[in-house]
């Protein structure tokens, strides 16, 4: 793999890191795998791309992405808490509905090119005037968001959110509205996923309505790989691990491409990686059971 390709993978990984943090919030903190992500990622891309192509400031586009993602996550949470639809199904329903909404945001076109529009990456490159400015900018953004996550999860509200994923009975017995916590958690989670989508659209200078397929799996892969490789000892370490996991995942994929893997196999590889990562827990248990049984026999 060439240096340029490696740098490209890391840049992408940094942006996907923002998404991975969003997925972390629903998957780990709330203990709910949220499939809304496949839709809300594109909602973020569409919102930011449309704003940029219409000549608005790219930062405004990112803010809109975040808000749109929050709305999408809120709908999923409301379906789950108010209409009592299972979390997975709520996510699928919203993800499906978002496909049409995303097309509408994009004015009925399935893709938008931003080659002639301002993006934060182009603006920053002009401003900084150094090579790899995109890398630097993505790094700054990811670092800021990781810090924000850390401080947020250490607040009173953050405690309540984390406890909701752990033990909802305890949360309600502590005078906290667990449904509201789910709403806040899923809204923020999808807000950051959509923000990542918005960043991605501006980074690659285009948005495509079909790009969300399998995003949630990529997010889960990043979370799990990060946790396994970099550890979960403290909250800060865990958050950094998740971000690094996304970078590592992108780099692995980059290497696979460089070794000649066809791009069309990407989804299969992602799904195999996540299956493997998710099953390590149960595999470990089974093997240790076998070992224990062997010991008692001997």
């Amino acid at each position: 793999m060439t240096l340029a390709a490696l740098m490209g993978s890391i840049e992408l990984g940094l942006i996907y890191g923002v998404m991975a943090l969003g997925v972390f919030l629903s998957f780990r903190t709330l203990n709910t795998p949220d499939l809304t992500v496949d839709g809300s990622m594109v909602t973020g891309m569409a919102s930011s791309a449309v704003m940029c192509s219409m000549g608005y400031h790219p930062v405004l586009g990112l803010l809109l992405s975040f808000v749109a993602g929050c709305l999408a996550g809120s709908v999923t949470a409301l379906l789950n808490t108010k209409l009592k639809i299972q979390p997975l199904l709520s996510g699928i329903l919203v993800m499906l509905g978002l496909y049409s909404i995303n097309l509408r945001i994009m004015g009925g076109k399935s893709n938008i090119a931003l080659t002639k529009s301002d993006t934060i990456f182009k603006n920053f490159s002009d401003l900084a005037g150094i090579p790899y400015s995109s890398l630097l900018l993505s790094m700054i953004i990811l670092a800021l968001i990781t810090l924000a996550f850390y401080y947020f999860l250490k607040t009173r509200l953050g405690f309540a959110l984390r406890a909701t994923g752990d033990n909802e009975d305890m949360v309600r017995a502590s005078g906290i509205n667990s449904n509201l916590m789910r709403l806040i958690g899923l809204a923020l989670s999808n807000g950051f996923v959509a923000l990542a989508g918005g960043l991605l659209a501006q980074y690659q200078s285009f948005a495509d309505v079909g790009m969300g397929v399998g995003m949630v799996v990529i997010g889960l892969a990043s979370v799990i790989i990060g946790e396994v490789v970099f550890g979960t000892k403290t909250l800060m370490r865990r958050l950094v691990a998740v971000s690094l996991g996304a970078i590592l995942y992108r780099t692995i994929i980059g290497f696979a491409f460089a070794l000649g893997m066809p791009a069309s196999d990407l989804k299969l590889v992602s799904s195999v990686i996540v299956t493997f990562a998710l099953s390590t827990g149960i595999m470990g248990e089974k093997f240790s059971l076998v070992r224990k049984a062997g010991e008692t026999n001997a």
Partner: protein
Amino acid sequence: MLRIEGITKIFGRGTVNEKIALDNITLTVNEGDFITIIGSNGAGKSTLMNCISGVCLVDAGKIFLNRADITRLPEYKRSRLIGRVFQDPLKGTAFDMTIEENLAIAYSKNKTLGLQRGLNKRDREIFREKLSALGMGLENRMKQKSKLLSGGQRQALTLFMAVISDPMLLLLDEHTAALDPGAAMKVLSLTDEFSKVPGMCTMMITHNMKAALEHGNRTLLMKDGKIVMDISGEERRQTTVEKLIAKFDIDNDRMLL
């Protein structure tokens, strides 16, 4: 302090499985009361507690706590006035959070939930001081995750969390049933101690008739959704497990343990 007026709870109304869990129950609990509740399985003890705490809503009747009508109040709002300990030690704490973080959640029950720091130095000092009073060494393990605690330690912690925010009512649903005898005894003696907190009343469900008569100042016996016995004072002092068995024809082995 707690007044229950004619509450009725029916599960599966209109089906073949219709079950009257609570049948027109009226009860007044005074400040400082420590009521123990016994009764065989299905007598309605847990349903009574679930109706008081808001896990389920009653079909008829009214519940007042400190003169406020809480009959229709959602569970989480009632929880601000009510401390609870469940039978399952896993249910009382957030397992993947540290002891001090769990305490912080319980401690800020009646405070606004926002972006304030979840834990500050002063909180930690307060927790450390109060935890050391439990005599379980938990004050030195505040940064450990609660999943590392034993069942007894966890129930003691949960009990402590239930009273840390000065509730008016403490509800204990067989909170020692899942513990070994030693740990159960420890948790029961902590319960006695905490029940003396002024401005609070306590209700404890137990399957252990001996414990029911030895702890607290008043004992209720429930049967088929009704309170069939309510004793306190001299009458209660004169009562023994044997007398209860003879009087109420109790044939549940588990209650005799």
